[in-house]
């Protein structure tokens, strides 16, 4: 029980809480930009967990000055991995932002629910059927035949 209250325990708790907050945001947010920010938080949490995996309290920076100083080094591998993960994350977030701009321009809305329902309607129109589960058009087959003739 007592290793929860060490520095590492608190840091792990913070990192995992951060990713849980991010995941929660992804599940409940409706605004596109908030979704993006939740993604950023989620990723930050995961990156912190990764960088913590190589963390040693009182460890020194992993640089060889003289071979036998006796001090313990932090593991350098997770730091390199996190750097890669951060770069990938930034790239994806930039792409997401540019897509958000284009979606906003086309649909005139930042609300995921609106966009999703419009998207489903467009797909259904392209396929020539009524949108799945729509309450507005209860007589699907007739309606479409009428439109075509």
């Amino acid at each position: 029980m007592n290793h929860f209250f060490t520095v590492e325990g608190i840091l792990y708790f913070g990192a995992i809480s951060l990713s849980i907050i991010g995941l929660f945001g992804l599940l409940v947010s409706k605004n596109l930009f908030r979704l993006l920010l939740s993604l950023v938080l989620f990723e930050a949490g995961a990156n912190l967990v990764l960088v913590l995996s190589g963390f040693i309290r009182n460890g020194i920076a992993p640089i060889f000055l003289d071979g036998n100083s006796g001090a313990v080094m932090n593991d350098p591998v997770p730091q390199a991995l996190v750097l890669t993960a951060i770069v990938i994350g930034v790239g994806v977030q930039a792409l997401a932002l540019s897509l958000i701009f284009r979606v906003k321009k086309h649909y005139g809305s930042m609300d995921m629910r609106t966009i999703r329902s419009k998207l489903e309607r467009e797909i259904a129109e392209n396929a020539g059927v009524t949108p799945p589960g729509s309450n507005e058009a209860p007589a699907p087959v007739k309606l479409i035949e009428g439109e075509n003739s």
Partner: protein
Amino acid sequence: MNSLVLLMVLPLFAAFIIPVVAKFSSKLALFTGPVVLCINLLLIMSAWVKVGSGAHAIFLGGFLPPVGIVFYIDHFSLLFSGLIASMVLIVWPWDAKESRLYSLYMLLSAASFGLALSADLFNLYVFYELLAVATYGIIAKQKNSSATAASLRYLFISSAGSVMLLLGIAIIYTLTGTLNIAHLATMTENLHGFAGLSAFALIAIGAGVKAEMFPVNSWVAEVYGTIPRQLSALLAGLISKLAVVLIIKMLLMVFQVQAAFDLLLVVGMLGVISGEMVAWRAKDMIRMLSFSSIAHLGVLFIALSIGGSKGLWLAIAIMLHHLLVKGGLFLMADRFSGHFDKLKGLAHHSPMSAAVFLVFILSLLGVPPLPGFWIKMALVMNLAELGGGLYYLAIGVILLATIIETAYMFNLVQTMYLKADADSTPLNKRYSASYTFAKLFALLLLVSMVFVSPISKRLKDIANHSANPQIYIHTVLPARYLGEKS
């Protein structure tokens, strides 16, 4: 043998030079990609012969594992590399005018080769992300704005999945201090606790986004509904399987425990049921195919939950069969999309395409002499052999799904063979390469019907070899690490 690194390097290089080449000649840019893929196919074939029944590891940069990055080569990874090269060649965008799209396809294939070959967990994550970014780009590049919205929604779901994958990797690194899969396979006892299994769950669900796994597949219908059919054939046929390959690598080498199998079994069953139910209610071809594809990936997860070489053998068979059938059906759908009612009388317009369609559907349902039957049969037999409540339930689910599938598929076939109405649109009869490839796929299916037993024997050999962690460990790790263990 080390030339196999070119599989990944060549497409990556081509992706970067294609925009430059396009400045001088757009024809040249168009042909760069297919040429690279053909070279890759030749490399794969020569490696296939050279590897024989063994395995080979390539140590990148001369660093020996577990420090360096490793590519692991055996018939399983070469089989998938071959499928990637041929599938991307089949769906190559010949009529697209934009050189950027060619670059994205090249990036996609580079990442796919990396996923098939890499034996390092973090490297797999990087290739998975590269694959994801290339896919978002290709989807968003389509000339309609609904594709942009679909791509954005896909991006959110898939990035969340990648972060879960990263979190799983972080937990594994915390527990073991290594990311080399062979090295992980030597210390499985550290990973079979609660933390290790939650890492597996995170990895399975994270990679499951691409594999259309049950709770994280809401992107499927939207993306497949907005992109060209050829691209759907690529995504449903191949990319989903590559994500499964990632899960397979972790499952067979590191997490051979009942809890992991149970997780896959449960998400598999839920996927089968939910996919078939929605497909049953679908009114147009693409939606039906999308959800039936989700159901079939569910069957694949059920097969994986058998575990060991038997599970891998069944999984490979299901993946190949699904690639042929679903790939073929999506390529066919180029000709007859739209509301089912419009397909009335199709068989009279074009008996050939109706017949090809029927072959695919019969095999998908598992009607005897076709390969689909033997796969379903072997799957059910193996599940029954294992016994136990969940496995019996899985048999029930598979059989129930077959009934639902038969109901909606035969309904569609019946519509096709009805007399044409006045308002049924005549078939789109212009020549399309994808229809030719669909016919080729159907032919392959019929040929494999004749050679069922040699093919299954070959697949069993591959699976026996690839599902054995000892071979993997001895190929990858240098001898001194093994000395420490024993």
